[in-house]
């Protein structure tokens, strides 16, 4: 039986609950992306917070707090088969107990390690690569990460910029973390119109571009290395990769 869920973390956990107390699962899929199979029947699972909570604390208690983190990071990844990797991991985890993550090369456990690594790597990258601009006193950053990492970067910036108001906008998923007065929330988000930068904002962007431009040591040039660190797909939202020689001169 294929289980279809609504795309939420609680929904996924509810499916896992029913695997134990209902019909066994052959696969879990997002209801919005499911293509019907000719062999398997499917069932749409209604998200139930109470049941989800049971699975949530079972993972934490029977496996570990760290395993729960890994599962959550995996859930936020863009991996197409993540639901089934998570199900397999949780199933084996309930058998192996608190050392589950140490079976590093086990074929049901390794995918979780690898996906976790990718998501946490991208999260760490964007702690550095996110760029804010000051729009009438509110700091606004747009980006389009591979994985759904907005909730993972929020705490870092909420502490760092605690006296500011900021918006971290995932333009790929139309989601944003909105922060003000020491708390943040995640919300659906779309800009109504394009943003006009003030003169002061433009000045600091140009100063940064000018500074960045000056830093390379030409004798050490290594463009390939730079591409490894800053992939092309990230560059369109980075101030320092979007300037013209003219814009630097017209201050």
């Amino acid at each position, binding site marked *: 039986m294929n289980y279809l869920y609504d795309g939420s973390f609680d929904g996924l956990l509810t499916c896992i609950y029913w695997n134990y107390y209902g019909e066994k699962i052959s696969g879990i899929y997002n209801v919005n992306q499911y293509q019907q199979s000719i062999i398997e029947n499917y069932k749409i699972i209604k998200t139930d917070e109470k049941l989800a909570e049971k699975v949530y604390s079972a993972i934490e208690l029977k496996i570990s707090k760290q395993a729960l983190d890994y599962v959550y990071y995996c859930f936020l990844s863009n991996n197409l088969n993540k639901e089934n990797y998570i199900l397999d991991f949780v199933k084996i985890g309930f058998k192996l107990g608190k050392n589950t993550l140490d079976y590093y090369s086990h074929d049901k456990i390794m995918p979780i390690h690898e996906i976790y690594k990718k998501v946490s790597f991208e999260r760490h990258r964007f702690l550095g690569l996110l760029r804010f601009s000051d729009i009438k006193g509110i700091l606004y950053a747009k980006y389009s990460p591979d994985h759904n990492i907005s909730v993972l970067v929020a705490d*870092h910036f909420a502490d760092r910029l605690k006296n500011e108001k900021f918006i971290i906008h995932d333009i790929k998923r139309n989601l944003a973390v909105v922060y003000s007065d020491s708390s943040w929330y995640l919300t659906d988000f779309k800009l109504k119109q394009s943003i006009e930068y003030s003169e002061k904002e433009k000045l600091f962007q140009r100063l940064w571009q000018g500074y960045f431009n000056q830093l390379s040591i030409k004798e050490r040039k290594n463009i390939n*290395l730079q591409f490894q660190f800053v992939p092309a797909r990230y560059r369109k939202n980075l101030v320092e990769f979007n300037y013209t020689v003219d814009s630097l001169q017209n201050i």
Partner: protein
Amino acid sequence: MKEILEKLKILADAAKYDVSCASNGVGRKNKGKIGNSSASGICHTWTSDGRCVSLLKILMTNDCVYDCKYCINRITNNVQRASFTPEEIAALTIEFYRRNYIEGLFLSSAVEKNPDYTMERICKALELIRNKYGFSGYIHVKAIPGADNLLIKRAGFLADRMSVNIELPTRESLKILAPQKKVEKLLLPMKQIDNCIVENKEVRSKFKSSPKFVPGGQATQMIIGATPDSDYTILQASQSLYNRYNMKRVYFSAYVPVASSPNLPSINTMPPLKREHRLYQADWLLRFYKFKADELLTIEQPNFDLDFDPKISWAFRNIDKFPIEINKASYEELLRIPGVGIKSAYRIINQRKVANISYDSLKKMGTVLKRAKYFTTFNGKYYGGIQIDPDKIKGILRQKEIQKQLSIFELA
């Protein structure tokens, strides 16, 4: 406003040869109005030479009274001069930081007028940033040799890390290239900083709330390839700096020709990047792999093999210690296997507690098997396929390298 950009360009250009970019080592929540510090360090962007940009790295001024031959800011060099005011530095740091361009500030300076005058201005800038703007992020500051101890102390209570550049590994080299700088004068502030750190630790053990003095420790930097000093000399010098002054980091900087002088390599010399890379690898082995400098190099063999990394070179010289059994070796022994890093050694130890490790599973753990397989056994079985003989292994690794290069050419 154009004036600020011009100054920024001049003073960033003059500071860019300083290699330290680290912002790690201090984990701190936001205790002021803005800023925190991540223990693992955060890179914000990368320049076209592939170096990470983490800190706003600038000089207070490039107007220098010294005439060091290797330095672009020497008094006899004809370059544009500029100086920032402390307020300009502070405002720029905060505005860049708010936009998440940077992780903090790296403030250095040429010696304008005299060491005390310069250090005083550095202190003023730091005081503005910390007290007026309430900045709680990362600051790395250069101690100016020859400045009053009180000024160095004042800066140390405001900064996370402090450094004094030793510049060159030997007294002789320094005498030739930086005649106005005396070794004692460079070592004195290092000693002062170290003393203050020790003293501060003691005070803080009694009074927890007293302020921290350079919590990120001190660092220094050496120029590689401007003088004929061997890798052995450099590594010995760096090891003694680690031991004597509790250095957190010794940086190496491949010399980029900025001047012609009979005492310097010709202006057309390329910076010795490969050599710099080998030195960093060796430095890594000293700091994290528990190697000693004289295990890696000797007076008879004073330079690194540019074809092979220092760890595998060590393994070739100590081939009698191999192969090592993956399922029995201690953590320290695992770290000595070429191709096994800190993370994979850690994973091996962890997985061994619960399950045996086979040749195939090791590959999944991030080990570089193309090197490790010649130096290991798995439950007694050897997978190298050839005799454990340095020349034979070298031959095969070289061949692989050539094949790799050929395939790159074919692609192009």
